[in-house]
């Protein structure tokens, strides 16, 4: 079984609490190793090892940890360099240069917030810790540039190695971005199903969308952000990722579908906000029956990844073929539902066909 089949079709519910505990155990072990080294080496600044480990795990996800290793090393080097430059060049000659620190700190944080670059975050943290120790030290705490820079840099390398070693050996599957990605795909589609359900009820009964709806939309956005970030991390977890064409196509198809779904949902909400249900295309009962099937599809994408096919798209297509009143709200609503159903079918059948050699199951009629 290739990775492709695992990632796309096998969307079982993962126990998040269990996985989080396993990862917490791994981090706690890594941190404890750092502390043991801190005590056993008995060298100045050995706390830097456990600090590096803490920074490595500040955003979980294996891909993220690997992706951040380079930034961690580069950021430490630059941060230490700037800190020592400031201490030894300015503060050594005149302590009043320290008054400038809040202003530098402010500008640096603004810059970090704008760029959202992890290297800058590490530079900032690494730069200010030696500075803080210098300020709080009662004796004249002058850093010897070459010595401390080198030793902290070595500790950074040790910290990065310990973090990676633990990540790859202790509960090595607990923090795979791959697994989270798989779960988030299912959650995303299920969430779209919930949103559609609320929209359908609101449209039929003419009631305004409430706070619950806003909450669902927020959840949906969080899922997309999470999927994007997990996708970026996944590339660092598997070395054959770039060469895996079906996988790449599947991910691209997923993001195209997400964009299309969001766009269609936005249009549906617009229709709800401006128009009420009319019987230009079908009766209320008919309409409800069809849209509920599409909602069901979204909520149970797992079955469709395993080859289930239905004719909901064809049924709704037959409704919108009657082009009597193309500006009527129900016509427009049905049209958007048709596209949503089509996008869903395209995506789920693509996944099934790409990662399974067997044919799709026979079409199930939704109106039976």
């Amino acid at each position, binding site marked *: 079984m290739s990775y492709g089949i695992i990632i796309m079709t096998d969307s079982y519910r993962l126990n998040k*609490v269990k996985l*989080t505990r396993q990862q*917490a155990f791994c*981090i*706690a072990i890594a941190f404890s190793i750092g*502390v043991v080294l801190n005590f056993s080496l008995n060298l100045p600044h050995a*706390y830097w090892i456990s600090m590096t480990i803490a920074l490595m795990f*500040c955003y979980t996800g294996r891909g993220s940890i690997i992706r951040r290793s380079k930034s961690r090393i580069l950021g430490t080097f630059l941060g230490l360099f700037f800190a020592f430059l400031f201490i030894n060049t300015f503060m050594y000659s005149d302590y009043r240069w320290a008054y400038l620190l809040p202003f530098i700190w402010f500008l640096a944080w603004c810059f970090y917030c704008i760029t959202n670059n992890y290297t800058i975050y590490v530079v900032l943290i690494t730069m200010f810790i030696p500075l803080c120790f210098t300020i709080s030290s009662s004796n004249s705490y002058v850093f010897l540039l070459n010595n401390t820079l080198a030793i902290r840099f070595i500790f950074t390398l040790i910290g990065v190695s310990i973090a990676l070693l633990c990540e790859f050996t202790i509960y090595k599957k607990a923090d795979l971005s791959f697994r989270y990605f798989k779960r988030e795909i299912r959650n995303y589609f299920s969430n779209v199903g919930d949103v559609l359900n609320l929209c359908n009820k609101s449209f039929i009964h003419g009631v305004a969308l409430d706070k619950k709806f806003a909450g669902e939309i927020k959840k949906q956005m969080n899922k997309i952000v999470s999927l994007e970030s997990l996708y970026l991390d996944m590339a660092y977890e598997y070395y054959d990722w770039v060469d895996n064409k079906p996988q790449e196509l599947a991910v691209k198809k997923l993001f195209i579908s997400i964009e299309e779904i969001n766009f269609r949902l936005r249009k549906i909400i617009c229709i709800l906000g401006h128009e009420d249900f009319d019987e230009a295309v079908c009766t209320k009962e008919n309409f409800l029956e069809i849209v509920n099937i599409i909602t069901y599809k979204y909520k149970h994408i797992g079955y469709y990844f395993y080859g289930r096919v239905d004719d909901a798209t064809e049924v709704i297509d037959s409704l919108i073929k009657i082009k009597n009143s193309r*500006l009527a709200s129900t016509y*427009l609503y049905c049209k958007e539902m048709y596209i949503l159903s089509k996008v869903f079918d395209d995506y789920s059948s693509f996944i099934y066909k790409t990662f399974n050699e067997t044919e799709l199951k026979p079409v199930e009629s939704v109106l039976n």
Partner: protein
Amino acid sequence: MNILDKIYKIIRAYDPTGEFFIKGLMWTLPNTTGALYLLISRGPSSFIIYFVPSSILIASTYSSDYKNKLLNMLLFAFTMAISQWVIAVFFHRQVILIILLFLIIFFIYTSVKRSFLGILAPLFVAIFLELPPGWYNGANRLIETGIAFIIAVIYLFLFEFFTAKFKIRSSIIYFSELIYDSFFCYTTEDKEEIERRIKHKLLYDSSYFNKPDILVENIFVSRRDKFYHKITLARYKADAILLEENYFFRKNLMYAFYAKDVYVFYLRMFRAIGFMRYYYGKNKGFDFSVSFTTELIANIYHRLSLLSNMIKDRKQPEKEFRDSKLIDNWKQHLHKFSKNKNEKVHDDELEFYFGLKCLLADLDIVREKLNSRYGLN
């Protein structure tokens, strides 16, 4: 244009709602206050007093209601206090210390709901290893953590008191300008004119703003669609400030209430513009079957721009800008057009009209709300 204007424009392009500026202040002011306290008190103190308060304050940003904000801050401060105390007391009993630190780190990372703890707390736990040990020092630093917590709580309220209105106002102004821009993009053929006349040129032009989002790079071909998608992202940031955030002070509550009332209709306009997305791409030009559509679009540009200025200047513009006659004429033509069987007309054109109709309805409501808000009608 003088240099200050240029600097302001660049800052506004990268931080249009002032969000990052405020975040920078949140990272700086509490710590600086701690440093000032240290300078004034001149007592023996560790870096906790001037390095931790801002982090405690930042912990509050992971929730939108006050109960959870305070709980987050308390939990963060408590983790800091306990870990430094454990290190100070058990520094010379290393096996016990390692076991206790293991448990603390395990506790920090097991929380699914409060996962923000894992971002900063372990970093501080590691740094505490460098501080001088002993019961006395541990107790001293417990007090320092308490003071840091108090500083952070004071700043939590101060920040809301002084910056909430600014955040709400800048978010709604930014979003109103983006609505104008997106409407302009989907209703103008000439690309150069778009580049010249939209208000957020850098967001439209620069590939730098594509970076945070892989959807932009990998999916959209047209620059118009990329821009519309980027507005979606800006919308979610505005949502957090205008719809989700709970405010403590009455003046901010009222202000948020009024702003939300207007913002909701801007959101509706944004969705209505979505109906205009495919018309240009499929028709390679704007040739409308319903008369007065071109004039109506020109009028909407003007109205959107004036509404945005109305919020900016906090007053109604001098001139009346709703061309009622034109709107009535257009609606009549649309009504006639929709009664005919227009089988040759593509669905995208009909959707374009539907979008315009919705946009007009929402524009009228926003106009009324702003007029009543500024009491000039």
